[in-house]
């Protein structure tokens, strides 16, 4: 195992985060705060409780998930796309590192950033809304698992993308709608039955539902199904990455 190699990639990526702290930490924190102000404090005070939880508190898990998903994808995809774009990838390809080590470095750093960001947002939320965490262990587990899974997903997007536009397409056109329709702002029960069934095909529903269960003990789907689906997606991303490195897809001609 080339531990120095993993550490070099990891530190390099973390240094990149420090340089871009405005973009990678401050901006998602500010936009999440705006959600809290508008939907939590302003509109939320006029909304009824959902599952006996104040609306402002109800949307916290979904909003944290929104940032977590977007930032994991964007961090990891940029992390691997930039060396491809600038040409510095030659060094990683010619180094004595296995693909598992490359992924540990890039995805590990992206996931670390997301976890830090998630915790900052949770701490900031305390200023706007009062909330408790019923199952802290599960809350952290979901936070970590989701960060890793979507950083892996972002890594795949970064390899696949051959232009900056493609980097943006998946987070903006696919992930944002899935999160908004995945029960961030409402309970799936509130939808007409047909849309409840449709919602079950949205993988983000399981993430938000499980994460919310960790906070308040209520969920749209059973917690075991949430954990199961998250692990299925994690496995799917791992298989995707294994295939990329096996075939050299867009990395080695």
């Amino acid at each position: 195992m080339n531990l120095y190699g993993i550490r070099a990639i990891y530190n390099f990526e973390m240094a990149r985060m420090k340089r871009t702290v405005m973009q990678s930490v401050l901006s998602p924190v500010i936009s999440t705060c705006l959600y809290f102000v508008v939907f939590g404090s302003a509109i939320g005070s006029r909304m009824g409780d959902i599952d006996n939880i104040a609306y402002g508190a109800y949307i916290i898990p979904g909003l944290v998930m929104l940032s977590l998903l977007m930032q994991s994808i964007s961090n990891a995809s940029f992390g691997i796309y930039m060396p491809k774009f600038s040409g510095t990838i030659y060094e990683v390809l010619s180094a004595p590192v296995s693909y598992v080590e490359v992924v540990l470095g890039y995805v590990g750093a992206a996931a670390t950033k997301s976890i830090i960001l998630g915790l900052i947002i949770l701490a900031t939320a305390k200023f706007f809304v009062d909330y408790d965490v019923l199952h802290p262990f599960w809350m952290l587990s979901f936070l970590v698992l989701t960060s890793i899974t979507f950083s892996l997903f972002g890594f795949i997007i970064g390899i696949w993308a051959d232009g900056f536009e493609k980097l943006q397409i998946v987070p903006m056109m696919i992930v944002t709608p899935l999160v908004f329709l995945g029960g961030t702002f409402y309970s799936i029960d509130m939808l007409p039955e047909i849309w409840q069934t449709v919602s079950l095909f949205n993988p983000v529903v399981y993430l938000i539902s499980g994460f919310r269960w960790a906070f308040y003990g209520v969920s749209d789907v059973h917690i075991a199904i949430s954990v199961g689906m998250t692990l299925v997606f994690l496995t799917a991303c791992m298989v995707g990455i294994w295939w990329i490195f096996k075939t050299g897809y867009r990395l080695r001609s």
Partner: protein
Amino acid sequence: MQPDISVKHLSKVYGDGFQALKDINLEIRRGEIFALLGPNGAGKTTLISIICGIVNASAGEVTAAGYDIVKDYRKARETIGLVPQELNTDSFETVWNAVSFSRGLFGKPPKPAHIEKVLKDLSLWDKRNNRIMSLSGGMKRRLMIAKALSHEPQILFLDEPTAGVDVELRRDMWEMVRKLREHGVTIILTTHYIEEAEEMADRIGVIRDGEIILVEDKAQLMTKLGKKELRLQLQQKLDKMPGELTLEPVELSEDGYELIYTFDSQQEQAGVARLLRTLGDLGIEYRDLQTRESSLEEIFVGLVHE
């Protein structure tokens, strides 16, 4: 002695069907400077990229320092440093961090003293805390070399190291490459500047259309393929070539004041004596004479256009 790089029956066909390399066989000896010459698109960079692990081979075997580059890729790659043709750098990193990153990536524990030495040798020490984007082109080129040397490689690949580099820096780089060789580093360089190969290489390989068409000691190559030329400056103008000289490979210059005699440097040199004797017999007087050997460039052009 076991070769540092051994390439056997190596072929590469790209996805679009283009065959970049055709059954390449090549051995590079430990501690030599090997220059790979060839026109654009001949396959130089593909060959280097395969040895360094950036491009997959279609067929064939390659070992570096005795390790198979696929089965034993870790050990093989640890021994190799690569300076690619393009100046690919991370603009926002500092020089020090970029070089330290490379060392770590190649699995070596931190060794600030070594990084310091490399930066000093390449005159980058003063710039160690500067961001790469603030460096000039020549400094970036040296930074790429520093990165390649950061993990103390046994084999160094320099792909067009002096392209776009000014004369003084080019001399400095040659000096550095010689010093590395003195320390036992094997150096493989590709170049367009034949002058560079002529100046530095121990052996020369010529690649054309994906095939190695020649591998020779430089000195042998020069004598084997080199032509010699004897130029005689005449006292008086000749209007036409005297009939007695038409049998020899002699030309008369346009202004009629010079006779140019071309001969293979390996041939017996009786021709020169015969020519001079004939001139004496004809009463043609000359005031000066020079001989010169053809340069590697002329040999190269001759080979590639065959």
